[in-house]
């Protein structure tokens, strides 16, 4: 399926092109915008964006492949990312990840069969003072306990 921005996002994309001094610099913001719209980046989406930015598709794919936040496969409705780096790990991040695996019956990297949750272990989220931290889609949930995380998940419909 071919990709195009929705009307509102097309406007935002055009504004981006106008505000940056060159087109290629718009690559990251444009990829964010497309991913926000589509949920993940397909080959077709990347090719269409490359065309809009006057880049070779391979160049833009190279960029996409470098960054962990750009996803080339679909995820569940809620993307759960547990921070696993030292400060979180010292404060129970591993137990938190284990708990989520058991509760959701999936392993890290997997999605629940109903497509609701995807679980990922990620590196430092930059919130070490409120460890352990779980990022759900765009939101940080901090100073978590197992009970707290259960209550948060119960509210996600």
């Amino acid at each position, binding site marked *: 399926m071919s990709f195009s921005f929705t009307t509102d996002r097309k406007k935002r994309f055009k504004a981006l092109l106008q*505000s940056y001094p060159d087109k290629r*610099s718009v690559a990251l913001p444009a990829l964010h915008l497309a991913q926000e719209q589509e949920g993940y980046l397909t080959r077709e989406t990347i090719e269409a964006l490359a065309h809009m930015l006057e880049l070779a598709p391979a160049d833009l794919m190279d*960029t996409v492949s470098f960054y962990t*936040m750009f996803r080339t496969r679909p995820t569940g409705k809620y993307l759960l990312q547990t921070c696993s780096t*030292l400060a979180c790990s*010292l404060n129970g991040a591993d137990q938190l990840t284990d708990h989520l695996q058991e509760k959701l019956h999936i392993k890290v990297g997997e999605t629940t069969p109903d497509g609701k949750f995807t679980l990922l272990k990620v590196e*430092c989220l*930059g919130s*070490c*003072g409120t460890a352990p931290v779980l990022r759900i889609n765009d939101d940080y949930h901090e100073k978590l306990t197992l009970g707290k995380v259960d209550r948060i998940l119960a509210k996600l419909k």
Partner: protein
Amino acid sequence: MTGYEPILTKHLGQPGSATLAYYLSNEGYKAARSAVRDMDRSQIIQTVKESGLQGRGGAGFPAGVKWSFIPQNSKKPKYLINNADEGEPGTFKDRLLINHNPHQVIEGMIIAAKAIDCHLAFIYIRGEFVKEARVLETALDECYNNKILGKGIFNSKYNLDIIVHRGAGAYICGEETGLIESLEGKRGWPRIKPPFPAIEGYLGCPTVVNNVETLANVPHIIANGGQWFRGIGANPESPGPKLYCVSGHVKKPGVYEGPCGTELTTIIYDWAGGIRDDNKLKAVIPGGSSSPVLKANEIDGLKMDFPSVQAAGSMFGSAGIIVMDETTDMVQACYNLARFYAHESCGQCTPCREGTTWLIKILDRFTKGQGRQEDIDLMLDVTDNIGGLIDLSYGSFGKTICPFGEAVSWPVRAMVEKFRPEFESYLTEKVTG
């Protein structure tokens, strides 16, 4: 710290502290107004040089000196980039500055931009900080609506635009040339220096990259003078207010502001409440995960500033203090950090790409009880091959294009050397059990 009034976090927690109205009613943008209207470039640079302000991202390079490298006569556009790609494990201060007082950071950017004759500046913020990016955009909108940004700011002839640019999850983009590549829409592969960004940075143009906290200091320096700033803290060679991030096994983790040169024990025991459960302290990482670990007996009397921590064999870095109590398994801690660096190695230089993979292979063996006697020395050998021997004089840099090589080698090496018996016990357990 008695007698110290917070400067950078003075308004923390006040209702509306992120709004322009609040900021303006507390002397906000006075310094930027005077810098834009009444000061020329050399005056601003001179004042910041006098202040002794060192980069707060970790390297500690004098900010005023960095600005002075921008060629005065170049016809190319000059760019300022605010590095908000906060990602050094243990560091979480820039996020706080942005959330609670974005205008302080923007004001610092306006002054820095004027100092280097820049008319388009960027805030490169790590991609995960979606909320923080929105806070900044809201603050920028307020500025545009009040002639603080855009054309003819503060009714002068000076124009300045600022763009918030989100990264997408890559630690290496906190390195200034990796950041510039990323801003250009490419993978964040650091560049060989020279040329330094001040000569050829973003789009080949003169560019300054400064950390959020560095820039947040600038309005205060312009308002109060370079000498005032240099008088803050224990050592005039490494002065100023500092945000200390305390995490790990302390009772009250968080960001604490104090003068540079505050004793590490004061920060851990007086401010952060001491060790959780009143356990014994085992080790402290003083300046973000890239700084070599210090054992409990090495921190007594240690002052937190660039020269003092370096003299103690570690780095002040970003002042990301990670505290580990007696229950910490140092082999696991070492494995955790090595895994972080292996994941974040950009893959450009062979010693780093291959070396970090070797390290986690070896550490993985250890934690599974399959470590070999020779593995301990092998790890030390691998760290030498990635980053060179620990020698904090600058001569030892250079096996990789960027300092990431050192950033993984030093902490891993320090953990293995200082806690060698723990690594050895993993071997004995294998033999006996």
